[in-house]
């Protein structure tokens, strides 16, 4: 049994929080946690905690959102707790160093005047709404997040998946705001590049 999906069912019929319904979305939860934590044991743990919390607070599920959206919000909070406890700062030097080859890559995108080179000038992507209703898009998207260098991915996902504010991320990881912005920018460029080759051109060579 598949959980109702917010995309396809704006008017989802009321659905209870059952162990069965949660099991149906467990693999999606695991993938999400794994992308964020990059540690399969920790991912299993937070998913288990989130499922227990969901079952324990089933009465607070109002059915306004889909069950999956509700459970993902719980999962996100569990991951944030986990990250806060972990409190492991990332050395700035290793973060910036992890991506040195990417700077060379950037030099291929732009000419000496800082303008797009002819072959790398960005083209328009398909309509976002259509893309996001497509399984192929999400397959490529997950694969691209998966191959992002680990430390950069961690920072990027703290911002975009967990929705933490810049200030908290900087404090957690001991980064300056400027560093953080550079890292997030690189992460977006990487993701964009990967989606270009994995999604738009389907395996073709991207810039």
């Amino acid at each position, binding site marked *: 049994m598949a959980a109702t999906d917010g995309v396809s069912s704006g008017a989802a019929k009321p659905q209870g929080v059952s162990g069965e319904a949660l099991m149906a979305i467990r693999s999606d939860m695991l993938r999400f946690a794994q992308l964020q934590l990059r540690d399969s044991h920790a991912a299993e743990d937070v998913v288990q905690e989130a499922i227990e919390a969901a079952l324990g607070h089933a009465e607070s599920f109002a059915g306004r959102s889909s069950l999956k959206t509700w459970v993902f919000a719980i999962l996100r909070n569990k991951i944030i707790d986990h990250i806060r406890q972990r409190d492991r700062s990332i050395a700035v030097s290793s973060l910036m160093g992890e991506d040195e080859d990417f700077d060379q890559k950037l030099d291929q995108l732009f000419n000496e005047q800082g303008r797009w080179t002819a072959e790398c000038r960005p083209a328009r992507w398909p309509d*976002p709404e259509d893309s996001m209703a497509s*399984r192929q898009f999400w397959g490529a998207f997950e694969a691209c997040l998966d191959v992002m260098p680990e430390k950069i991915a961690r920072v990027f996902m703290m911002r975009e998946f967990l929705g933490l504010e810049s200030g908290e991320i900087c404090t957690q990881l001991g980064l300056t705001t400027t560093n953080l912005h550079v890292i997030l920018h690189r992460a977006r460029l990487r993701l964009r590049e990967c989606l270009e080759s994995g999604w738009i051109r389907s395996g073709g060579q991207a810039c």
Partner: protein
Amino acid sequence: MLNCREVTHLCSQELERPLGLWERLSLKAHLMMCDGCSNFRGQMTTIREAMRTYREGRAVTSEQGSDRDPRC
């Protein structure tokens, strides 16, 4: 006058903080003349939107979703 490389950086920055007046004006002026950067900015918006959709558990996974491929 900003170049494309600087504009891509601003497009990312505007997702993080409110841009200053000068930044907004120069971004706008550049985008009016530059398709490449306008497309780039749209792609940044798509990525942000996709991240939000995914984190809310609204991504379309194996069981559901459209077989229609928007790339075609």
